[in-house]
């Protein structure tokens, strides 16, 4: 009898366990956050999993942004194997909306009663395609200037929070140190060869990167990256490289960052998301300050960069609900605060900067406020909404090649015009291919 009872008790316990297991919904989450950023992402996932029993998020690092979107496209092509939630870079916004495979976040938010007005304007504008918010602006960044203040003091250059491109050029010259043979000991400026900086100088100067007001009024059909701001920026950089004032460290951000961290470049431009890493690299070598990204003419405002989380269609109702629960968790001010402080990405919903832990951290390390201040003082218009177009990954390659051509001596206008003809072809082909289906 005793034996029997024990068996029954065991069976009941097993059944209960199985029941609990059956109720728990598991969702797949693919992300592209490596290093410091990856640790912070995993921490959030674990916290979410611990905070409740209904949903378990299985996260997977799928390589770089480029790898991530390609894995998604391959899965879509195969018609299976894609995750519930995927992180895709900023410039994938048009592509994901065109895929028809994504559940617009706006539809879900309305259904679940989440007020979209809680989003800050720029992140929301950026991921709004054809009037609808598609992705959750999870990790949002913008470009900022990094200053080596020891070099500034030595050269007698005063700190300012906002810089025109002209003033920046002058400062870079003053900050450059050369030896008797004219070899550069310390560069004034170092910016990695990345199309993103050309895009941002356009937006911040009130110019568009692609037509139809950055593809916000209608689908973009041609690029406009041969605008005055982009031309001025590339010509300036090439000129400074020739003078030995700016460094050419190629396309790899890490190669520029090591230069800056070792004190061999006085000014640099990176993302806000680089802040935690750069601060670590610099250590106590010199005091570091950050400032707004430069502009030509009048400062308009930068667009956001980074990536968004998308929910994919084709899953049972319960799983989509579970995925939404995860998204909802990420939008909590508390979660946003943790994410912001661990990475340097800024919060995308209101009411985060007022939290005590964020305020204290900002007092300790005021550099974390630069990105937020830059965002809040940016004009919210179609220029600062950022360019929305298909074929963006391909087009970025052409912009970078044009930048490299200017370093070879080609005038920026000419290099950008040549790149434009290739980019326009790519865009036209993309538009034709998605319209055909």
């Amino acid at each position, binding site marked *: 009898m005793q034996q029997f009872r024990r068996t029954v008790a065991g069976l009941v316990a097993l059944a209960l366990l199985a029941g609990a297991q059956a109720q728990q919904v598991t969702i797949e989450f693919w992300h592209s956050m490596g290093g410091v950023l990856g640790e912070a992402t995993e921490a959030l996932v674990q916290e979410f999993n611990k905070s409740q029993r209904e949903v378990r998020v299985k996260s997977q690092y799928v390589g770089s942004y480029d790898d991530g979107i390609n894995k998604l496209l391959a899965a879509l092509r195969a018609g299976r194997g894609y995750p519930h939630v995927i992180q895709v870079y900023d410039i994938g916004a048009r592509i994901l909306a065109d895929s028809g495979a994504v559940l617009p976040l706006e539809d879900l938010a309305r259904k679940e009663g989440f007020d979209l007005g809680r989003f800050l304007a720029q992140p929301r504008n950026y991921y709004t395609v054809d009037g609808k918010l598609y992705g959750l602006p999870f990790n949002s960044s913008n470009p900022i200037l990094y200053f080596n203040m020891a070099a500034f003091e030595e050269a007698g250059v005063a700190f300012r929070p906002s810089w025109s491109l002209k003033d920046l050029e002058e400062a870079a010259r003053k900050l450059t140190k050369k030896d008797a043979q004219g070899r550069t000991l310390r560069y004034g400026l170092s910016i990695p060869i990345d199309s993103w900086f050309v895009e941002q100088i356009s937006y911040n100067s009130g110019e568009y990167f692609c037509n139809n007001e950055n593809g916000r009024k209608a689908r973009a059909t041609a690029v406009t990256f041969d605008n005055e701001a982009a031309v001025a920026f590339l010509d300036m950089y090439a000129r400074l490289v020739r003078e030995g004032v700016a460094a050419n*460290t190629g396309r790899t951000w890490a190669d520029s960052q090591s230069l800056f961290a070792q004190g061999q470049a006085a000014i640099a431009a990176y993302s806000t998301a680089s802040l935690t890493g750069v601060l670590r690299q610099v250590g106590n070598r010199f005091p570091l300050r950050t400032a707004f990204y430069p502009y030509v003419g009048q400062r308009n405002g930068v667009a956001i960069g980074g990536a968004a989380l998308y929910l994919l269609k084709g899953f049972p109702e319960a799983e989509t609900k579970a995925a939404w629960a995860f998204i909802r968790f990420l939008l909590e001010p508390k979660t946003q605060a943790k994410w912001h402080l661990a990475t340097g990405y800024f919060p995308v919903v209101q009411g985060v900067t007022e939290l005590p832990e964020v305020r204290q951290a900002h007092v300790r390390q005021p550099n974390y406020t630069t990105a937020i201040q830059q965002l809040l003082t940016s004009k919210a218009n179609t220029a600062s909404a950022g360019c929305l177009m298909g*074929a963006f*990954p391909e087009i970025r390659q052409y912009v970078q090649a044009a930048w490299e051509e200017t370093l070879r001596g080609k005038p920026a206008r000419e290099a950008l015009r040549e790149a434009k003809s290739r980019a326009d072809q790519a865009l036209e082909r993309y538009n034709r*291919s998605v319209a*055909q289906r």
Partner: protein
Amino acid sequence: MRAGLEALAFLLPAYGLFLLFMILPVGEALWLSLHQEDLFGRGREWAGLANYGEALARPEFWKSVGLTLKFALITAPLELLLGLVAALLVYRPYPGVALFRTLFFLTTAVPTAVAAVAWGWFLHPVGGYANRVLGALGLPPMPWLTSPELALPTLAVITAWAGVGFTAILLTAGLQNIPEEVLEAATVDGAGPWTRFWRITLPLLSPTLFLTGLLVLLKSLTAFGQIHLLTRGGPAESSMVWIYRVYQDAFFNFRVPLAAAEAFLLFLVLLALAGLQFWLLGRRVHYAA
């Protein structure tokens, strides 16, 4: 008959894997290259040879073919020469030879990714060791990987360096196969080391040298990892070799069928070179018999 069946049973797993991972993907790529579809794989339709026509009509494609040729023409001879020097140093036993053999082979044992990252540091445009050495000698720093003129040759040298161990092993085997008597006879006839090398060793080694050269050429046509990690086809597309163009078209430009056509064209070139190699190998076997 029974033995044949038995042998087949043992070979089947290997054949199965070969079919699954080699033949099928090649077939799939060929199939894909004959179709047209959008980037999400929708609306796939028969395109015949249109993708091949487009690939061959693009000036970018021919630029990539030219760069690949240039890359191979620097890599292959350099790797062969370095491998030959290394093999000559270690093919005869002497105290400590194992240490040198290991050292030479080490470059091949290092994974491409690790080697590429190390070279990246070594050649950093400002703080890299290479440029600091130049600085100490009073020479200006070189933009090893950041100038369109230097990037491809630099990558070729790195590739040759990474392959030295491989060529050294093949050539060591070749050198060890040269009959000792012939060399002795030459010595008796009064030939010095220089004459022996040019008149005896090199001619007798030439079949091995030629085959190794073909292998090295094949490898250099498909070099990808170091290019991906160090220059990504840049600066200004100066290192956009054939295989990197395929990668770019497939995974950045999302034009998978076009990329499949370009990949298949490369496959045909590699196949022709491999065929040449087999043909030569066959001829050599006949000599020996």
